[in-house]
């Protein structure tokens, strides 16, 4: 139930924020040094020590992992498998544990390298 709602919510987030930022990033990249400087400035912008874009990007990478893992779950269930209550619930919990761990690993690596 929760994972099904998360699949939808993360899908909506990836559709709007994910594709929107991808298009913005590519356009800035293609549009010269000034444009890319503005994009990087937006990434590094801090509102009282808090970088909003970094939080959005961390949220989007979590959304990506969650949507990917629950998407795999949906594909497995489309074959008619994993409908038994125990397996179904474990699989659902596993998608959340997996997405949180992958996001944490990715950003510990990214922010660790940057410093």
């Amino acid at each position: 139930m929760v994972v099904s709602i998360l699949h939808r919510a993360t899908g909506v987030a990836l559709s709007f924020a994910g594709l929107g930022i991808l298009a913005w990033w590519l356009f800035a990249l293609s549009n010269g040094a000034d444009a890319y400087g503005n994009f990087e400035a937006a990434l590094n912008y801090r509102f009282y020590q808090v970088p909003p874009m970094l939080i959005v990007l961390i949220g989007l990478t979590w959304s990506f992992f969650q949507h990917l893992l629950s998407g795999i779950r949906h594909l497995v269930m489309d074959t008619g498998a994993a409908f038994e209550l125990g397996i179904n619930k474990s699989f659902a919990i596993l998608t959340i544990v997996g997405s949180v761990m992958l996001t944490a690993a990715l950003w510990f690596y990214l922010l660790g390298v940057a410093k």
Partner: protein
Amino acid sequence: MSLGDSATPLGKVRGLGSAHHGGEHWLTERVTSIALLFLGSWLLASLLILPKLDQRTLIEWLHAPSGAIPMALLIVIGCRHALDGMKVVIDDYVHEEGARFAWNTLLLFLAVAVGAIALFALARIAFGSVA
């Protein structure tokens, strides 16, 4: 049903529904999801493998066919999958026929616009000179 019992469940629903392509929509969403499994992982892995994430390195990456081709696929298939997914959300929550049509049309325009902007930017990088 004229198809008989040998038809698969998917085969039975193809062409059904008010739009006569409900089964195709469902199947397209699955097929694009498998493609995005690879393309999304490719994007993440590429960004992790690149030595630096400055403008010059990123442009060199997308200037090469090995970067530009998967990125073009990611843009096109990503926009298609987003549109298919958002349509399901709209069809679930917007019940009035006219409003549903308006929302679906708005989302179609938005998906095509975002895809066009991203593809244009990518083409400029891929076919331009490396700065």
